[in-house]
């Protein structure tokens, strides 16, 4: 901490005494109320101290348009997701707790932007990033993403953190916790850069108290096996073999074992906060896994017996000579290079990534009490009020979904 002013007036107040006061607020440091005078509060709001506010770069309406839903609380300043008046981020949250976070480095952006370069370089040398991910500045619809920046990129290993750098200023937008598209998110960053020198009169610090009240309305976390009673579960899946077992955020329901068959269990897993974020990340991981496996190339050799045809000319005679002759027929050997996805589609009418729920796509037709849902690998996942519920679908997919539906009716 730099030395405070040795100003003639209050050397001690500015120094020794207040040094003890400069620690950050914490509940453990709370003191009893000791103020003996009524604070001389200003009569009106002033913008005297309003600067470097990440919430002053975007109109609420333009964020709502990008989210496709109205905000549940005015944009607020935050740090690591928690509302704090001097936070470096601005959080935009819909009434259903979908979240987008805008972070602004007013200076020092160059070093912040290049922190991930080494990791990016390593990943580009591997197959971890899909070709589409490597071409980060192409939007979902294939159009080129451009804006008021010198350079831009996506944070590696994450679908939805877009970083843009202009001179030494960096703006990042993390839209993982929402359904926002990259194209819409990049447009918001573009708009933010255009306002950075003439910000709006929006004060994100003033909205912190409202945000805390809003977040207090989130579903309260419950023990995983307390969400549904045993009777409720048995009404869906049948009689259980044992008492439901809770571990971390998961409740396991085990069915009676059938002789010679694998044990059947339903694992119901809850994430009470950041459900939208985790859901989109799960989809991204699934998509990357699907691309890695489904895109694997393999050589497929087929041999087919075809009837002999009389040669029409000399070239036909040479072609016929390469085939293995038999009585009236010959064998034609064909070698093709196919991806796992193409091969699976030829065999089953569905690609491998589709069949294994590794496309990364949300299921838009699967109606339920949830706001978002998808099959992700061997699980069904759904989000409601930012609570993510996952269930294993191995035993019975319909009953697994019914469990999620029943659980979601509880919050």
């Amino acid at each position, binding site marked *: 901490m730099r030395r405070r*002013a*040795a100003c003639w007036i209050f050397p001690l107040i500015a120094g020794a005494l207040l040094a003890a006061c400069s620690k950050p607020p914490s509940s453990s440091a709370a003191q009893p109320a000791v103020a003996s005078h009524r604070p001389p509060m200003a009569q009106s709001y002033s913008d005297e101290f309003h600067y470097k506010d990440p919430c002053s770069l975007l109109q609420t309406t333009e964020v709502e348009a990008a989210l496709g839903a109205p905000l549940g609380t005015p944009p607020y300043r935050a740090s690591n997701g928690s509302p704090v008046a001097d936070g470096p981020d601005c959080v935009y949250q819909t009434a259903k707790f979908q979240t987008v976070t805008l972070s602004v480095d007013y200076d020092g952006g160059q070093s912040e932007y290049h922190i991930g370069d080494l990791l990016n370089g390593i990943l580009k040398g591997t197959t971890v990033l899909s070709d589409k991910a490597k071409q980060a500045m192409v939007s979902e619809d294939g159009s080129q993403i451009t804006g008021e920046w010198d350079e831009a990129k996506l944070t590696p290993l994450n679908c939805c953190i877009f970083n843009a750098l202009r001179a030494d200023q960096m703006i990042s937008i993390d839209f993982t916790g929402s359904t926002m598209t990259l194209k819409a998110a990049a447009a918001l960053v573009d708009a933010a850069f255009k306002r950075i020198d003439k910000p709006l009169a929006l004060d994100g610090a003033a909205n912190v108290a409202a945000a805390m009240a809003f977040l207090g309305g989130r579903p309260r976390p419950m023990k995983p096996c307390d969400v549904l009673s045993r009777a409720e579960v048995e009404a869906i899946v049948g009689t259980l073999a044992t008492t439901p077992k809770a571990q971390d955020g998961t409740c396991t329901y085990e069915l009676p074992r059938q002789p010679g068959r694998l044990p059947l269990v339903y694992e119901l897993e809850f994430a009470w906060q950041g459900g939208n974020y985790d859901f989109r990340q799960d989809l991204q991981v699934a998509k990357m896994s699907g691309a890695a496996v489904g895109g694997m190339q393999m050589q497929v050799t087929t041999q087919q017996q075809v009837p002999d045809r009389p040669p029409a000319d000399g070239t036909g005679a040479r072609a016929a000579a390469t085939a293995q002759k038999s009585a009236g027929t010959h064998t034609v050997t064909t070698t093709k290079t196919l991806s796992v996805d193409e091969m699976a589609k030829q065999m089953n009418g569905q690609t491998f990534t589709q069949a294994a729920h590794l496309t990364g796509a949300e299921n838009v037709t699967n109606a339920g009490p949830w706001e978002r849902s998808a099959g992700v690998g061997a699980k069904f996942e759904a989000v409601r009020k930012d609570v993510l519920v996952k269930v294993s679908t191995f035993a019975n997919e319909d009953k697994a979904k019914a469990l999620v539906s029943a659980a979601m009716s509880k919050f």
Partner: protein
Amino acid sequence: MKRCLMILIFAGATAVARGGTIVHMNRTDFDGKTRPEAVLYAQEGQFRMDTLDADGHVSNFVLVRDGSVWQVDVPKRTFFEIDQAALAGQQSQMQEQMQAMLQRLPPDQRAAMEERMKGLMAGRSQSSLTMTDTGKTDHVGSWDCEVWQVRRSGAVSSDACIASRGSLTGGDELVDAVHKAAAITKDVVSALPGARATAQQMAVYGKVDGFPVRTRQLGSDGSVESAETVSSVERQSLPADRFAIPKGFTQTTLGGGHE
């Protein structure tokens, strides 16, 4: 009508005459770099001192008015009152923390630490502070000033070049507000056992009939470690809210807890 107009003109002139004073101060570090450090506002006995960050934005300010001292943390949007009870509570909390820390030390280290702390406390309570006019004059910016030395326990710790109130724009307003603020601060800190020197300091400042246009922190060898210099003084009628806690800020206590 004419009489009313005259009254209005007179009232306006009075308002201007009773306007506030703004003092801008720069800091020069030992590396020679100078940057804005603080802004002082004084008006009708009310006083505010802003501390600026590297970008020139206000990081915090101290407000002295109506017999109270308030500290405002601008980035955190919080404020608290500095009064005797709060300071005593803070000091007591620090002592408790220190005792808890000492209890965790091995006996020999604890004894050595306790001995050192005793010496430190004794030094604090016995240290004296004096200010003397060196009889020298200097020139800082556009002001002529007299050089005073501050001695702490006999050793010169800093010096100040004090311009007379008459030579400063709004000097009367400024010096009166400083005197008042120094008196309030002296009262607030006087109850603290370890703040005897500060109380003395406040008493001395309250007697200086001028304003320091330059203060310098001196090393033990007399070298200048840093200097704060007045860069400009303006006279301006200031809105009442300039001497208030901004609307929307939250009250906390000295330790940072919310009230």
